[in-house]
C-alpha cells in the first residue's frame, strides 16, 4: 500500500483502510487475550522445562503482548498525524475519531517507529511460532495448550 503510486488513489485508499481495520481488530483481540490471560492464568509449564527457557518464553510472550498493543496504537497515531488528512474507517464504515491533528513532524517520526515495531513484531512472532512448532513436534502438546489453555 505504501509502494503503490500516488495516482492510484482508490487502490491506495482501500488498502490503507483495510490495513487500519486489520490493525484495530488485532488491537481488540490482543486486549481480549490479555484480559483472559489475567483471569484464567497462563497454561502450566512443562515439568521438565529448564528455568532459563521458562524465563525466555515469558519474556518473549510479554514482548509480544506489548508489541501487539503498542504497534496498532502507533499506527492509529500515524494515520491521525498524516498531513493528507484521510479519516480512519473501521470496516470501511465506522468512523474512528482522530484524537490528535495532523502534524508533518510527528507523522515522520510515528511512521518510522510504527514500521520498525511492526517488523520486530513479525520477526518475534515468527520466532515464537517456530519454537512452538518445534516443541509440539517433540511431543509436548504445545499447540493444544496454546489453544485450550
Amino acid at each position, binding site marked *: 500500500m505504501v509502494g503503490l503510486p*500516488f*495516482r492510484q*488513489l*482508490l487502490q491506495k*485508499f482501500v488498502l490503507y483502510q483495510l490495513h487500519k481495520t486489520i490493525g484495530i481488530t488485532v488491537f481488540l483481540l490482543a486486549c481480549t487475550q490479555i484480559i483472559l490471560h489475567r483471569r484464567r492464568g497462563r497454561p502450566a509449564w512443562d515439568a521438565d522445562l529448564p528455568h532459563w527457557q521458562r524465563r525466555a518464553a515469558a519474556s518473549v510472550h510479554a514482548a509480544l503482548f506489548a508489541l501487539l498493543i503498542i504497534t496498532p496504537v502507533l499506527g492509529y497515531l500515524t494515520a491521525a498525524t498524516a*498531513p*493528507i*488528512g*484521510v*479519516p480512519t*474507517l473501521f470496516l470501511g464504515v465506522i468512523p474512528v475519531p482522530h484524537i490528535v491533528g*495532523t502534524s508533518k513532524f510527528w507523522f515522520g517520526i510515528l511512521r518510522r517507529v510504527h514500521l520498525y515495531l511492526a517488523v520486530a513484531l513479525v520477526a518475534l512472532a515468527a520466532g515464537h511460532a517456530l519454537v512452538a512448532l518445534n516443541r509440539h513436534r517433540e511431543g509436548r502438546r504445545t499447540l493444544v495448550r496454546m489453544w485450550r489453555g
Partner: protein
Amino acid sequence: MPIGGAQMLRGGAIGRLLLGLGCVALWLAAAPAARAASLYHIDQRYGTIEFTVSNLGLFTTKGRFTRFTGELQIDPDHPERTHVEVTIDGNSVDMPLKDEVDMLRSPDYFNTARFPTQHFISSSVETVSPSHYIIHGTLQIRGVTSPQDLNADMTERHVDEARHVEWADFVITGRMRRSVFGMVADPNMVSDNVSLDIRIRLTVEVAPKTG
C-alpha cells in the same frame, strides 16, 4: 499612501461604494462631489483563494492558490458595471502533500505546463442586498471557458479611526464542475463538484474627521 488591503488608486470611501451598490445611506445622498470610479488591485497579500472537493462522499480535501492578481473596478453610478478580473498562477497550487501538488499540475488536472494560468472575468454584478452581491462572469481553465456565478457577502466592515483606514471583508463562494473544463480523472476519489472559497479585504483611506 494606502496602508493595507487592496490598493485604491482613485475615488471615494467604502461608504460611497456601498451606496453605489444599492445601500441606503441618507447622509451620502447629499454628497455633492461626483463619485469617481474606484480601482482596486488585488493579490495574495489581501486575500485567499481556496477550493474543496469531496472524496468518496466520506471526507473532503482542501487546497488553495498562493499567487494570483486581479483588478476590481467599482462604478458607484452604475453598480451593475462593477468589473472584476482575476488571474491565478496555476503552479502556485498548494496542498498538504507534494504528491497532491504534482497531481494537480499534471495534464489530467490543471495541466499547468500547457495552461499556466486560470482566469475569472466578470460580466455583471447583481445587488441582492447591501451586503450580498452575485457576480456573473466566466471562468477559463485549461483553455475551456464556462459561465460562472459567484456569491459575494460582505461579512465585516470597520472604520479604524486611529489609522484613518476603512476596510471591508468579503467572502466569495461558488461551485463549479471540474468535468466542464475537461478534468475527469479519478471520478470516484475526487468529486466533480468543487466548492470555491475566496476571501478578500478591501481597504481605503478615509480623511480624518475634522472639528
